[in-house]
């Protein structure tokens, strides 16, 4: 019975979509323009650069509370911790800065990157753990604490810089982009939601109790201090929470799907300013 019901739900959902020539082939440039047009047409009053502020760009009452909290935001402790970690050498004398261009300062907007050598998408979080392992240190947990502090500091030094994601002329890069896009639009979990169900079709609307953030620029605010967590979380933590919220079992932090969806969404946000670290309800 359940099965029939769900299939029925899925069919209805499918039929309700506009029937474009449905194929999985990717045209990043065309999709970039369509994605941007969709959000700017739907929210003509929201300034383009304001989309990176997520639900606060959609709701006046929330925005006021955000401004009050942002006067002295709770992620300040994470920025300071990350800065200290950045300044502290590994046992071999090297440090995080040695793994990045410009010593890691003001480079957040260039991630994720497609890495031709490994043939996969490397996010900032993954680059940090790769850096640790290359220097004989153990990798950090991908969801919070140390990793969130490091990425908070790196985002802070990159604030205002426009997102700058490249899809090199390499079929594997395009495949990663397409995989991210697939993950973003695929319904999952018992509630039968895709990322897009919330963040494309319903930004600004309430779901249960939250005001949904627009997908445009959603990665620019990472990592975030989320009141519901009572602490900092990385992109992986946020994606894991999204999965659980639709009653799906989350994937491990920085899974290929998570990295690819970050690649897709960050490319869609090209040109929009880095606003992380952010606060969210």
């Amino acid at each position, binding site marked *: 019975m359940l099965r029939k019901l769900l299939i029925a739900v899925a069919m209805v959902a499918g039929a309700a979509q506009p029937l474009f020539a449905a194929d999985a082939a990717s045209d990043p440039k065309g999709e970039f323009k369509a994605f941007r047009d969709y959000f700017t047409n739907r929210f003509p009053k929201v300034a383009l650069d304001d989309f990176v502020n997520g639900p606060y760009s959609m709701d006046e009452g929330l925005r006021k509370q955000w401004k009050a*909290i942002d*006067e*002295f935001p*709770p992620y*300040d*402790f994470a920025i*300071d*911790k990350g800065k*200290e970690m950045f300044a502290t050498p590994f046992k071999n004398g090297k440090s995080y800065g040695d793994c990045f261009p410009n010593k890691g300062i003001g480079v957040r907007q260039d991630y994720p990157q497609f890495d031709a050598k490994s043939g996969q998408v490397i996010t900032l979080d993954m680059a940090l753990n790769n850096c640790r392992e290359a220097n004989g240190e153990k990798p950090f947990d991908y969801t919070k604490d140390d990793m969130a502090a490091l990425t908070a500091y790196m985002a802070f030094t990159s604030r205002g810089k426009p997102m700058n994601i490249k899809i090199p002329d390499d079929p594997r890069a395009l495949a990663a982009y397409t995989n991210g896009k697939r993950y973003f639009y695929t319904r999952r979990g018992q509630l039968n939601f895709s990322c897009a169900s919330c963040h494309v079709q319903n930004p600004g609307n309430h779901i249960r109790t939250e005001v949904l953030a627009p997908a445009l620029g959603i990665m620019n605010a990472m990592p975030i201090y989320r009141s519901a967590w*009572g*602490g900092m979380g990385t992109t992986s933590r946020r994606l894991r929470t999204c999965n659980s919220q639709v009653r799906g079992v989350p994937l491990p932090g920085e899974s290929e799907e998570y990295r690819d969806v970050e690649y897709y969404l960050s490319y869609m946000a090209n040109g929009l300013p880095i606003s992380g670290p952010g606060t969210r309800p």
Partner: protein
Amino acid sequence: MASTIRVRAIASGDATQVQALISHPMDSGFVKDSKGQLIPAHHIDVVEFEHNGKVVFTCLWGPAVSKDPYVKFSFKGAKKGDDLKVSWVDNKGQSDSSVAKIG
């Protein structure tokens, strides 16, 4: 260990605006951990702000103050370069203090 206290104190004319953020769990005593055990109340009781030997502001906080608590107030009589001392003590007897320069 890094200080638990962040202070921004800015003198403008006669008044000095003070904002402080303190790293503290502020456990209410009503929340259960992942094993279903109640996390005992652990919160800051008192925060004191002192300028030139005079207490200029006192916070008395209960468990309903948010995690990593924040407070903003203004007082008169200080000038740029003065010290502002901030100290807190919690219900477990832990404490910290810090001296900030008024900017």
